[in-house]
Structure formats: C-alpha cells, structure tokens
C-alpha cells in the first residue's frame, strides 16, 4: 500500500473518466466485440425499466442479467443516470485494487514456499526464483496491465456488465489467495448463477481449501451447491418467479442469440443444420467447461492460482458470449507468472496476432455491416485467428510453467557427454 499504488489507481480512473466523456464511449457500447447480448448496457437499462414497470423482464428475449443485479442497480439507473460512468469506473478501479492485493499476497506466499524448498533447487536458477524485488514489481505489473490495457479501459467506458463480472472474479481470486472460504464460495456461487461458466473455478477452490482430504472436499462441494441454490432462491424472491433461470443460464446454455461476437459459437450455430443443434450445443458447452477441467486440475494441483488463471482464460476463449473485456481480465493475470516468461516462446507472435486480428475485426465489420461488400466469413476468419492467438498464449503459459518447474530442480543447462541436452516429448 504505497503512494505509487494510489497514484496508479487514480491515473487509471482518470484515463477511464476522460474516455467516457468522448464519443468513443457510445461507439464502444455498440461494438459487438465488447457488448454481447449478455453484457450490453442497453439491455441492462431495458431490464431495469421493465422491472420498475412491474413487467417480468425475462418474458421477452432481451434481458439476461440476474434479478438481484437488476434490482440492486435500479435505483442508480433510474435516479442518477449521469453518475453511471463514474459508478462503473469505481467498480473497475476496485477490481484493479483487488488484483493488486491478491498478487502481493500471492508473491509473498511464493517466496515463503521458496525458502522452504530452496535447498532442492539447482544452482543456476536464481532468475527463475522469485526475487525480493518481485514483491513490488509483480503487483505493480498486474495493476498496470489491468488499468492501462486498452481492452479493459474500453470495456469500462462501454459500461458492459463484464465490469461487474470482473469484479466478482477478482474478489474470488483475492479470497482464494487469502484463504477465506466462505466469501470465496459466495462470490463464486453468485457469479456462477450469473454467467454459468465460472462453475469450473470450483476446482482451484477445492484444491486450496480441501487440504487433500476427500471429506473436506465433499463438504465444500455441498456448501457450494447450497450457496448456488441460495443465490438462485434470493434471485427468485425478487420477482417471485423462476423465469430468470431460463433467461440467464438457459440463454447461455442454449445459445439463443446468434449475434456475432469474438467467440466461436455464433458462426457454427448459424451454419449448422437444425437437427444437429443439440449435439453440437452439448459438445461446445462441454468444451467450454469440463473438457480441460480434469487434466488441468491433475497437472496443476500444486498451483491452484495458475489453474484458476488458465481456466479463466479458457472460459473466455470458449464461452458462448465472450467479449474483449474478459480477455483484458485474464491478460492482467499473466504478470503473476513473470518467472515463467523466460520460457514463453510465442509472446511476440501472440501479441502480433492480437494486434492484427483486432485491427482487422474493425475493418471487416465495417465492410460486412456498413459497406455490404464483405460477409460473415471474413469477420469469422478474424475472430477465429484471434481465438487461435489466445490458445497459443494459454498453451505457451502452461508449457512455460512446466519447463520452469523442471529447470528449477534440474538446472537450466544440462550437459550429457559435453553436448547440451535437448528434452524430447515422448
């Protein structure tokens, strides 16, 4: 908690405030890359208006926000609409602060772990270990990566409800690192009922809190289910109807809105024959949730936070309605793994991929929607390349972690008969 931290927070807020007053804000609020049917500000307004007028917002096909959030924000939306940008900016800055605190704590834990394991490390691995400076460097990098990433800035000025999701995810990670079981469970349950996919984050939660005991794990799982039901019931109480379940979770699972976004769902579901729809729905949703869950949990059982990072990232790539705000969130978690960066071979390629595909998306969207000369295939090409870039990044991170673990104990340079050894995957 030093002066620099507050300066950065203030600067991040100022940047957001400046851009929220330019015409850019309204434009971003309408861009499909940021505002999906799930998180768009307009739909939130619509939902609050319907709620206030005593109409069930979920009878139509516009509103997909949970009743609790709608009723919590309705006062602000109705009475002080001019304060809304400031509200979202405060939420976003708060997210950044949580990430900062989380990463400080995380680095301290890592350093403690390091001192106990120190004697097993190989000689030439000082650069792979967390140094004293990392206590300051890594949290600072995290907060800078969150506050000044154009993706999160634009997400915030577009006032999408991804800002709220990011806040929940950040507080989940904070509680996870801090070891607060109940808040962690509650936040996760809340976010799960809102957007379904965070259910996979139960895996890192179990790894952290169960301490290798099956009974504790079972109890925590039951507690999680109970809190999910509790949150759902609280939502039920707002309107006294279960319609919201279909309007939020059902809408996500059945992928009812084919509006283009940066994900992979929309194009396939526009093109495919109707009678294959159920099969592909299940395949795609499995891919987004449980497919990678088990292998990753086994491999990363000693690194729950890395597991959480990777799961958040995979969720962003494969979810039904992803937005660039989600991408910005997990990019801010990457500095936590600064000590793996040495082994990340594709950093530059991924960066170039992101740059090129994001700039192409704008041009191709213009050609498709406004000029009418290009078509959906062009735009999908760009989004597909963007997703590929993200997958490159995630696999690169995983491999870098594995290599770091190996080198930490075996040394960076291994010589066999005077020749530098190469590791071969078999």
């Amino acid at each position: 908690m030093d002066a620099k931290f507050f300066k950065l927070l203030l600067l991040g807020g100022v940047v957001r405030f400046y851009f929220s007053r330019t015409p850019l804000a309204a434009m971003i609020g309408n861009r499909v890359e940021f505002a999906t049917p799930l998180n768009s500000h307009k739909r939130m307004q619509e939902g609050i208006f319907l709620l206030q007028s005593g109409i069930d917002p979920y009878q139509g096909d516009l509103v997909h926000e949970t009743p609790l959030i709608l009723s919590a924000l309705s006062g602000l939306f109705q009475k002080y609409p001019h304060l809304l940008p400031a509200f979202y900016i405060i939420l976003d800055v708060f997210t950044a602060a949580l990430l900062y605190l989380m990463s400080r704590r995380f680095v301290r834990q890592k350093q403690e772990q390091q001192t106990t394991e120190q004697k097993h490390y190989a000689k030439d691995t000082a650069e792979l270990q967390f140094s004293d400076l990392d206590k300051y460097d890594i949290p600072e990098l995290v907060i800078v990566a969150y506050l000044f990433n154009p993706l999160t800035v634009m997400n915030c000025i577009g006032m999408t409800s991804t800002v709220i999701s990011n806040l929940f995810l950040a507080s989940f990670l904070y509680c996870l690192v801090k070891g607060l079981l109940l808040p962690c469970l509650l936040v996760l349950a809340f976010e799960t009922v809102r957007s379904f996919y965070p259910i996979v984050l139960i895996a890192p939660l179990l790894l952290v809190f169960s301490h290798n005991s099956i009974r504790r794990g079972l109890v925590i799982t039951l507690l999680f289910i109970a809190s999910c039901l509790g949150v759902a019931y609280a939502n039920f109480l707002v309107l006294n109807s279960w319609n919201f379940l279909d309007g939020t979770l059902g809408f996500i699972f059945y992928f009812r809105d084919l509006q283009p976004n940066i994900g992979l769902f929309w194009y396939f579901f526009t093109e495919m024959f109707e009678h294959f729809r159920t099969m592909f729905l299940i395949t795609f949703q499995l891919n987004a949730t449980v497919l990678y869950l088990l292998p990753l949990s086994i491999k990363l059982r000693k690194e729950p936070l890395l597991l959480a990072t990777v799961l958040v990232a995979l969720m962003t790539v494969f979810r039904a309605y992803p937005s660039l705000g989600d991408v910005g969130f997990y990019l801010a978690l990457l500095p936590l793994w600064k000590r793996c960066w040495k082994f990340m071979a594709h950093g530059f390629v991924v960066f170039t991929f992101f740059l090129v595909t994001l700039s192409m998306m704008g041009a191709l969207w213009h050609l498709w929607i406004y000029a009418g000369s290009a078509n959906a295939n062009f735009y999908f090409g760009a989004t597909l390349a963007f997703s590929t870039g993200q997958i490159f990044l995630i696999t690169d991170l995983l491999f870098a972690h594995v290599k770091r673990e190996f080198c930490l104990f075996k040394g960076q340079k291994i010589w066999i008969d005077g020749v530098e050894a190469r590791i071969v995957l078999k």
Partner: protein
Amino acid sequence: MGLLSDPSISTQSKLVDGLARHVRKVCTVLYVAGVAWFFCLALPEFNHGTYLSENALSPGLVYPEIRVDANRLAIQLLEELQRERKDHLSTTPHAWIAAKMNEFGLETHTHNYTLRYPFGGGKEYHGKNIYGILRAPRIASTEGIVFTAPYRAASSVHTDISPSVPLLLAFADFARRKNYWAKDLIFLVTEQEQLGMQAWLEAYHDGDRDLDVSKAYLRPGNLPARAGSLQAALNIEVQDLEIDYVDVRIEGLNGKLPNLDMFNLVQRIMAREGIASGYKQTPRKKRRHSKSLFETNLRQMLAMLATQSSGVPNGNHGLFHRYRIDALTIAAHRRATHATLKGQPGSAAVPLLKAIEGIARSLNNLLERFHQSFFFYVIVNNDRYISIGDYMPALVALVACAFVKAYLMWSTLPSTEAGGELDTEERDADTDVEAEKFELPYGSVLIYLTATLLIGFLCNVLPLQQYFLEIPMGAAPLTTSVLSFLSLIGFILPFVVVLPPGGLELLHVAFLLIYGCSLIVIGLLNFALGFFVAVLTVPLVIALETKEDTSRSTLRHAIRLLALILNPMMIVYVIVLAMTFYQFPELPLQKILLRAATAAMDASAYGLIDSVLYGNFLYFVISTVLLPLWIICWTLALSKRRDYADYVEFEESPASSPQPQSPSQAKVKTS
C-alpha cells in the same frame, strides 16, 4: 516437436538466428514474390472469365419493346432543352424538367440542399434536384431502382452531357406505360456534379434525422417522397444521341465497386444491342492491336487500381456504394465524325434506349439485393476478372515482409537475447547500469509513438478548427501550410528528441508492427491504395537498419535520402508533377514545377473537403496514418544515438523519459 509444444528449454532457435542474419534477403524474396504474383495475374491462366451468378437477372430474356417513337421523343426533348439552355447559362432549367416529368405522369418533386463551404470565411451555396417517381403497380413502394442523369449547365467546364436528360425522360415516358414494374422507378436529375447526388442520397436516407446544423457542412434537407429501399442505380451520362461507344464506369467512393453481376449484366445487354461497350473503353481507331495480351491486361489492371486508389468516384454512381446500393455509370461517348454513320440519324439512340430498358427489366426481376457475385475484384478485360482470393496474396506477401522483419528483429533484440544471463550473473558483479542498459525503454518509445500519432491527428483536425477557418485564406494554402508545418515538426523531432539506448530497436519493431497493421486495414478497405503504398514503401522498410555500422555509410545515406523522398507530401507532389508533365508536356520545366506545386496544394484541399463532405478517407490515411509512420521511419533512418556518458547522466535525473512535446526541456536535462 510441434509448433505449440516445443519441449526445448531455450526459446532461441537456430533457424530464427540463422534467418535473422539474412533479414533483408528473406524480405526481398517476399517482396519480389508479391510483385511477381501481381504481374502473373495478368496472364490468362491466373484470371477467370466472368459469368452471371444471380439467376434472377436473366438478361435478355424479354424482347425489347422500346421503339423508334421513344427516340423521336428524345430528339424532340433535346431540341427543347437546347432552347432552354440558352436562357439558363449557368443554372439548371428546373421548371422545364419538372414540367416534362409531370407531363409524363411521374410523381414529381424538387429537393433543395445547402452547402456551407467552410473555408475562406465561409459561404453558402444552394442547389436543387428534380426527381420523379414512377410508382410500381405490383408492389407497395417497398423497393426502388434509381435512374439518374447529371445535368451540367452550359457554362460548365466539363464535357457537355445534356442529352442524358432527354434520354432519361424518353425512357421514363416509355416505362410509365408498362404495368410489369415490381419496383418503384425513380428518375433523378441532379446538378453540381457529385454534390447534388450526395445531398440527394443523404436526404433520402438520413433526411428525417436532426443534424447538428452548426457542424454539418452539407445540409441535405429532407425529401417529400421516397420509394422504399433502393436496390440498384444506373447513372446515365450521354454526350450525344448518336454514340460511338459506351464506357462503363464502376469505381466508387473509397475504391468500392458494385457487384460484379451488375457489371456483367450491363456488358451482356450492351453486347446484345450491338453497342461497343466495355470497362475503360476507348475509341476504336485509337486502340492498337500490336500490344500483347499480357501487356493490355496489365495496363487495364493498373488503370483500374489507379482510379480506385484515390478513392474519388469517377461518376455519380460511386456515392451510391456508401449506402449499399449497387450502381454504375454508362458513359456514352459522341461519335467523332459522321462519316462512319451506319444507321439513320432518326433512330440513332434506339440501341441505347433498348439497353437501358433491358437493364431496367433485369433489375426489376431482382428478388433480393445483389449478393451472389463478387464485390472485390479487379477487371482484367471486359470479360475477365480476378477475385479477392487471387489478388490478396500479392498484398499479403508485401505486408508479410514487415511482420517477418519485426519477428526476426524482436528475437535478436539485446534484452530478449542476452537478458537472462545479464539479470542474474552480472547484476551482482557489475553496477546496475550494466544490467539496465538492456532494459528496453518501453515508456519513452510509447511516448514517442504517441507524439507522432498526435501530429497525425492534428493534421486531420487543425484545418477545420474555427479559428483557422476564420483566417481569410483559401482552402489550398491553409491546408498546405498546416500540413507542411506539422511535417516540419516531424522532420525536426528526431534531431531534438534522442531515444535512450535500445529505444531505436524497440521503435523499429513497433514501427514494423504498426506499419503492417495499417497496410492490412487499408488494403482491406481499399486494395488499390494499400497495394500501391506497399509497393512504394516496402523497399524502404526492408532497407531500414538501426544498427551502429559505420562501414556502410553510403548505404545509410541512400536510406536517408529514400526516407526523405518518401514523405507523403513529397509523394503527392511527385504524383501531381508527373500528371502535370503528362498533360502539359510543352511547358518549360520551371513552369511545370510551379504549376504542379499549386495543383498539389489544391489536391490536399480537395482531399480534405472530400473527406468532410463525402467521407473519402484518403486524406485521413495520408495525414493520420502515413505521416506519423513517415516520421518514425525518418527517425529510424537517421538513427541518432545518445552518447553513453550522456545516457548515464540522463538516467540519474528524475524524469527518465524524454518529452517530445517540450523538446527544450528534454535538452536541458540531458546537457
């Protein structure tokens, strides 16, 4: 060993290191491949024959019914119009046109618009378009087709195309008697060239929208009547009723093209009526047959790309493309001599009328908007084309140079190459300075990039600021002075602000990435512009080098000279100079240089006005994208380095990043 799962510990690969030593060769190969691919496209093996994709068009399925009486009507109307023109030397005979449309039973309306010309203290111009709607008997005005004829006053400097209006009216009279129309037909006579067309289109689509009157330069007003969503438009420019050949013009705003089906349709029907017609058609006797097929094809392709690259439409049709309406111009040229006249003078325009009827009836068959065929193509010959999938590789190969070079440069940057060892071993041994020497100065490079982008942004914004507009100065000198002042700042910038060690290399990588991205985006929006910019600038980008290398100083000077020449302003001047020289070869050199200078100044002003009125993005691209890129390029070509001692001192001072905006301040701190 996979791409994603390379198990080796070191991120350095021998292949990359090997390639990095031959960056220039690799890039040159790519460049040559890209240009060669483009040339290959002119060969018949690489392009395809055109065909009609949209079955609904069925060109020529009906017999043309328009007869010689329509031609007689056209001749009679032309005579009347010629009499009217004597009274309206610099205006349009609105009353006569409206009266004729009323007489033929069209629902006739006038449309008023105002142009608030921003420069030179501001002036207002008023204009008036006349249009008549023929309501379709078979549909409730949900779709429409537009037939337009621009009217040029007798005092206009352009070629006289007054026969277009009588031809349009004669066709309207014929069409009114038919009951098979499934789309409303709009017959529109515009004035003041593209301005009238733009005003009409804006009024048609956004007329009911409240415009900010103080900001809008063109106030289109509103239209009293509309005819639903416009499906297609045909612009008719006829020089005389006795025509020699028809030139089909397709290039629209920002290089957009109508659907290839529309072009094919016109070509088919013109061929059926026996009219010599084609893309960039020229009089027969001027055509030489000695050239090889390859050469004619290549010339045709280059001519098309040249027209497209400026983004200025070559006819009123081009403005329709902005509203997703496929449109083209049929420009009928006057027969030079009457000696070769075949038909009788009394029925000279019948083939053209028949063609217009055929086109109208085919468009009438459309069930949905044009969507079947290509929107991105290059016409090689009247019946051959290249699709986007075939010509894009040429641009991609050129752009790939930038990315390949960026990757190879990045992987050999000091910090990524040797950073690991330095961090650990030498940090303890040496002082911090040694280690920090290889920390890349991200901050200062970012500020430098922002400063250059800001200069570009100012180019786009400054000339339209109120206090600049109030200066009693013409548009051309004003725009040129703002542009040259800002490029001068860009020219001086690298002399004043010197980046810390490693900064130039990082700037180089950033430059290559931004350059590549901009070229891709420009190339997607307007292939011709992107391709020409790439062909011109990629050699410089390949040659640029920031390494300290004193042995090859001639090369370094050559690169600096090349960078200086490739300034966007300079290129505009050179292009204008070449065009002036081509047009007025008889003038002495001094006069040509001077005339080209004034013409270039005018061109920059026109570019700005076009971007404001029509949404042409050429000015934006040159000033806001290419100029900043040039400034960075120039910085890299100079590659000024700070002395090491200087740098140490600089690092000790609190502000570690140079301030490009206040150069004096930065200088004080370094010295």
